[in-house]
């Protein structure tokens, strides 16, 4: 039975008769999303991915994933008559002979760099605000998976044009595969269809790049977003915001307009970037030839840390029983990234185990209130940045007149020394900020007004902070120092309980994790401070009045 009169209503009824979508949408169209700029970083990644799908589809229409050698005869004169693979020749054609092709290539590549960068800053936001805590641990895992897939997708795309840089990158990848003990040689021959570079790899990489990995990314993003909708978005502490509610704007219309608009903004900015800034000028690199190399052979930024690790790792190689193990490749290129990504993925579970925290969290942490976590995060970022600098050391050396040898040595020392220093400094800063918050709660804010009391004493006037700030501070700091308590380690007869050692380690880690945390003022302290402040104010006022000339 039709009741709708407007065309839109009729269309809606037509659809709902067949899908029953109204039931689902009535709940979700007014879904509430909290408003904060830092909640949009993940959106940048999502939108970059959509842009990558769109621009990538365009590129597939013209790109030829073939390593068959052809003689180039296109518009770019300096390469005319040069032997190259069809893949490289078609990339040149896209750049010079297809209208808008160069723009599309640049959009695709800039969007790819931004995709991984946006995932990284989104990850930082999630990490430092503790948004990965229960019930969101699985979504964190999906996110780490997405980061890994994005890096693989980026590397496979970097390798497709078959220019001198991308071929060199593949050569290094082959060297890394060869270093895998026992099966490395076989793996390499299976991957490349024989010896490097062969004729099979680019077509194979192409199907991985345009089908397998994007499909996996799409599936993971879908799961990622469904989880966000189901859990409802986290929010920052503030008046009216609790663990049991979510305060923000409804999806329809405000968020649809803001998020939808942001898609266009991200897309527009990436297109403008591609209009004015060159990326990956493959025509300058020339076609890949295994006998050529260029100074500054570097990967895209997200592989830079691996390249850096390969550069600074000592030249360790073991030969025994007729077999070779190349630690100088195996460790920096496979074991270390394995450890890094495993630790990253497991972090929520490790932290929950250490803190013994089994509660659900929907209010975000202020990074300062989790001094240990924040310090660990900064430590990890420092480690990563040093590897990144090592990966770019020749470019930095030429730009600043440094010696690459000195830079390598400095990176080797720095990668061990600087992260712990960063940890300590960050923790100190966080604790200082915690102390300041406590002071603000107890004594109010410093107004900068200096008054001279009739007694000759100078005091700085403190003004009470607003209730909003008080609530925000108290809420943010709530239970930040709840330590995991060691269960009874011995039973009644004095026999150590099973797992006593593990639990002991756990308790020690927990104490370390919460060490030095500045406790929030207790209600009594707050009350007393308020009382004291009032007294002080009255006292001062009285003194001032007494001192006034009558």
């Amino acid at each position, binding site marked *: 039975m039709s009741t709708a009169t407007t065309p839109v209503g009729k269309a809606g009824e037509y659809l709902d008769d067949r899908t029953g979508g109204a039931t689902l949408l009535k709940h979700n169209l007014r879904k509430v999303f909290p408003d904060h700029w830092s909640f949009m970083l993940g959106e940048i990644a999502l939108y970059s991915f959509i842009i990558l799908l769109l621009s990538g589809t365009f590129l597939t229409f013209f790109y030829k994933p073939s390593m068959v050698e052809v003689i180039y005869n296109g518009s770019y004169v300096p390469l005319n008559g040069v032997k190259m693979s069809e893949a490289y020749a078609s990339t040149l054609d896209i750049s010079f002979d297809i209208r808008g092709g160069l723009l599309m290539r640049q959009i695709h590549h800039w969007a790819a760099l931004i995709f991984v960068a946006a995932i990284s800053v989104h990850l930082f936001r999630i990490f430092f605000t503790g948004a990965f805590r229960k019930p969101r641990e699985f979504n964190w895992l999906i996110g780490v998976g997405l980061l890994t897939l994005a890096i693989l997708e980026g590397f496979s795309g970097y390798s497709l044009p078959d220019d001198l840089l991308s071929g060199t990158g593949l050569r290094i990848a082959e060297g890394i595969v060869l270093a895998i003990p026992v099966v490395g040689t076989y793996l390499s021959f299976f991957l490349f269809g024989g010896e490097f570079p062969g004729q099979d790899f680019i077509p194979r990489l192409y199907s991985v790049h345009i089908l397998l990995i994007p499909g996996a990314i799409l599936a993971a993003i879908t799961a990622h977003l469904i989880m966000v909708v189901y859990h409802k978005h986290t929010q920052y502490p503030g008046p009216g915001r609790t663990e049991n509610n979510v305060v923000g704007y409804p999806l329809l219309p405000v968020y649809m307009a803001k998020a939808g608009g942001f898609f266009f903004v991200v897309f527009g900015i990436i297109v403008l970037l591609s209009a004015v800034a060159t990326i*990956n000028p493959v025509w300058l690199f020339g076609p890949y030839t295994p006998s050529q190399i260029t100074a500054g052979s570097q990967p895209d930024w997200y592989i830079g840390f691996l390249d850096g690790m390969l550069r600074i790792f000592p030249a360790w190689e073991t030969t025994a029983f007729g077999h070779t193990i190349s630690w100088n490749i195996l460790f920096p290129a496979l074991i270390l990234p394995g450890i890094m990504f495993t630790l990253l993925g497991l972090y929520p579970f490790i932290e929950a185990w250490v803190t013994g925290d089994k509660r659900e969290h929907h209010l975000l942490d202020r990074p300062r209130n989790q001094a240990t976590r924040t310090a660990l995060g900064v430590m990890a970022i420092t480690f990563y940045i040093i590897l990144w600098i090592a990966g770019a050391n020749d470019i930095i050396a030429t730009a600043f007149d440094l010696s690459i040898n000195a830079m390598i040595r400095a990176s080797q020392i720095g990668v061990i020394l600087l992260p712990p220093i960063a940890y300590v400094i960050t923790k100190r800063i966080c604790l200082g900020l915690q102390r300041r918050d406590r002071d603000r709660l107890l004594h109010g804010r410093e107004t900068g007004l200096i008054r001279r009391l009739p007694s000759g004493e100078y005091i700085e006037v403190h003004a009470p902070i607003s209730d909003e700030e008080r609530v925000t501070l108290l809420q943010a700091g709530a239970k930040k120092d709840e330590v995991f308590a060691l269960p009874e380690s011995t039973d009644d007869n004095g026999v150590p309980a099973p797992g006593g050692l593990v639990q002991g380690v756990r308790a020690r880690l927990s104490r370390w994790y919460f060490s030095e945390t500045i406790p929030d003022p207790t209600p009594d302290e707050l009350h007393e401070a308020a009382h004291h402040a009032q007294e002080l104010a009255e006292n001062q006022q009285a003194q001032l009045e007494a001192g006034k000339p009558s």
Partner: protein
Amino acid sequence: MTSLSVRRRHPLATALVVGLGLLLVGGLYAAVGQASEAGAASATSTTQQVSEGRQLYVTGCSSCHGLNAQSTSNGPTLIGAGAAAVDFQVGTGRMPLAAPGAQAARGPVSYTDEEIASLGAYIASLAPGPAVPTAEQLDYADADLAQGGVLFRTNCASCHNFAGKGGALTRGKYAPSVVESTDKHIYEAMITGPQAMPVFGNNTLTPEDKQQITKYIRTLADSPNPGGLALGRVGPVAEGVFVWVVGIIVLGAAAVWIGAKVS
């Protein structure tokens, strides 16, 4: 010392292209005429030139290279270095050495062209060595550009980078940018192998090969960047920095704007 990778292409590059074009199209005959003249001049370096050169050498160079160019602990021997090496080292301002360092850097030229020619004549008179190339040897008008690219990528790009922008070597040494170099200096560098650079003699890279390479370098140097800002033509590192410093900041600013409350 200006850092190499951030050194942009010379603002007058366009003017230079136009000038070169005019020179090639309009003044070809004149250029050929001048060339043969220059060739004749260098072939007949007079004894007067040699003695002038000797005097300049004694005042300006002998403290490091020795009174008879036989080398000292401060500088290598110049016997057999040839006029080309003198023209390159002095003509690019690398010599006289401004300051000790990992390697001599390009700098202001301290001698006039005539003085450099005299110095060259003196060094050439000590023992045979590579001569300053003639204009004919430098004329790459008919050279094969694409083949020049192949040779450039095989022999030069490993140190000087795919776009001739230069790169790092060991212990603070570096391969300088070649895009600002004159044709003559490029040629001289190949035949003399200044400082760390290996020698590419005329029997391994023939004068014709060198012309092709020079043509490719010139084309690279004068080629615009169709994609927009070149970011120094140093490869993906600059792109990565750009994406973080510009891309993420601009997009983050947009996010801040969206999240900001309106009054």
